[in-house]
């Protein structure tokens, strides 16, 4: 929760700002504290009725699969309800309320149920207020104070929902970034980076960083960059590829570019990028051959190889 507080920048100043915006005065808090007795008396019926509503709806019921869960959330709900009537609104209160929001987000309850329940909840509380004190100015003022604090809580819950969504998004972006430069070791000292999709300057930059890092990590002699899946290459990207090639050479390794498409080749040459220092091969297979060549290996036919090895052994029969 501390983390949430930090991310939402919920400090004393923010709390004061929210309090004033929701118009929660000391009088409100005093009124709430005075309602404590009422709250303690009415908690159980309110919570019971509240859950009758939630569990009565097929879709919201799904979030409460068994009796144990229902008992647990009812207990939490009692705490929550009594929490409204402490007369204290500090950072600890905020932290508590964020936890409530996070719990709802955590079980995947959509905001519609959360907000919908709150409307029902407020109606229930009001009915109980009227029952206790009778309709009038006192009851209206009390209800007003409860409503303010409940809306304050709802705002916090929405914040946790949105924050959680943003966190998800950030995680996915990180995953995509990672997937966008999958450097694979295809042989000892030979790396392969297949590129698919659009390459923009940011990605090109990242490609360079990843490539250099991996070359060092893997002690690679050759890295093959296959761009058969890249349909568009602009000046900047071509330039980045060239720089990557040069930087890799500085590390003592070679870069081979494979799979340059006709349109990409046309663009690069027409843009006037000097590519004379960039070794290229049409197909990935040829790139791998060249790479093996560079590290002093060749691909040979297994049959010829086996024949050569077996030749001295007379006792072994040739396979048909």
């Amino acid at each position, binding site marked *: 929760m501390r983390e949430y507080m930090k991310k939402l920048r919920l400090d004393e100043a923010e709390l004061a700002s929210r309090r004033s915006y929701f118009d929660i005065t000391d009088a409100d808090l005093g009124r709430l504290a005075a309602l404590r007795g009422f709250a303690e008396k009415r908690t159980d019926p309110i919570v019971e009725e509240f859950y009758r509503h939630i569990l009565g709806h097929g879709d919201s019921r799904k979030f409460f699969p068994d009796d144990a869960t229902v008992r647990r959330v009812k207990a939490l709900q009692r705490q929550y309800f009594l929490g409204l009537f402490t007369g204290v609104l500090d950072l600890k209160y905020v932290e508590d309320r964020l936890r409530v929001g996070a719990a709802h987000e955590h079980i995947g309850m959509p905001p519609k149920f959360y907000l919908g329940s709150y409307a029902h909840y407020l109606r229930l509380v009001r009915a109980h207020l009227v029952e206790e004190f009778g309709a009038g100015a006192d009851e209206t003022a009390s209800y007003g104070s409860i409503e303010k604090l409940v809306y304050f809580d709802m705002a916090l819950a929405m914040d946790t929902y949105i924050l959680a969504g943003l966190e998800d998004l950030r995680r996915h972006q990180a995953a995509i970034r990672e997937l966008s430069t999958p450097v694979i070791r295809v042989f000892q000292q030979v790396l392969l980076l297949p590129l698919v999709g659009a390459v923009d300057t940011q990605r090109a930059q990242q490609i360079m960083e990843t490539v250099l890092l991996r070359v060092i990590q893997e002690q690679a002699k050759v890295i093959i960059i296959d761009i058969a899946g890249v349909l568009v290459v602009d000046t900047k990207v071509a330039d980045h590829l060239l720089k990557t090639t040069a930087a890799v050479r500085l590390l003592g390794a070679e870069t081979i570019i494979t799979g340059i*498409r006709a349109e990409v080749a046309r663009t690069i040459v027409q843009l006037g990028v000097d590519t004379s220092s960039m070794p290229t091969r049409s197909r990935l297979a040829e790139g791998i051959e060249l790479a093996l060549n560079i590290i002093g290996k060749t691909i040979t036919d297994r049959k010829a190889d086996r024949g050569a090895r077996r030749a001295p052994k007379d006792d072994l029969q040739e396979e048909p």
Partner: protein
Amino acid sequence: MTKRHEMRGSIPVLRIGSTLLATIQVELRDSVAEDFQRTVLTRIEDTGSTGLLIDITALDMVDSYVARVLVETSKMARLMGTEAVLVGMRPEVAATLVRMGFPVDGVRTALDVDDGLALLGRLRPAFDL
């Protein structure tokens, strides 16, 4: 050895083993030159050929535009992993290019198609013909 004859635009691009042979027999006017370049590069992409011979025996005049197209096409082919060789350049064409001061370095040349094939063979020892 396979031989495939294909007409695209007006310049045939033949496939001989893993080499493409483009014989230019018509004047390379603007649209034709553009078309020629696209055709050759697309053929490289399709076939994965490792060598390209551009036969310009029939061209008795090469202006700077045509020269540029030829040089650029060679560079593009090289990017795609295909060594390009210009073959059959006429003496007067060579003289004109030199006189124009056209930068033709980086482009390989050979006397005729035969020599060009031999040159490609030397460039790529693992060349399969």
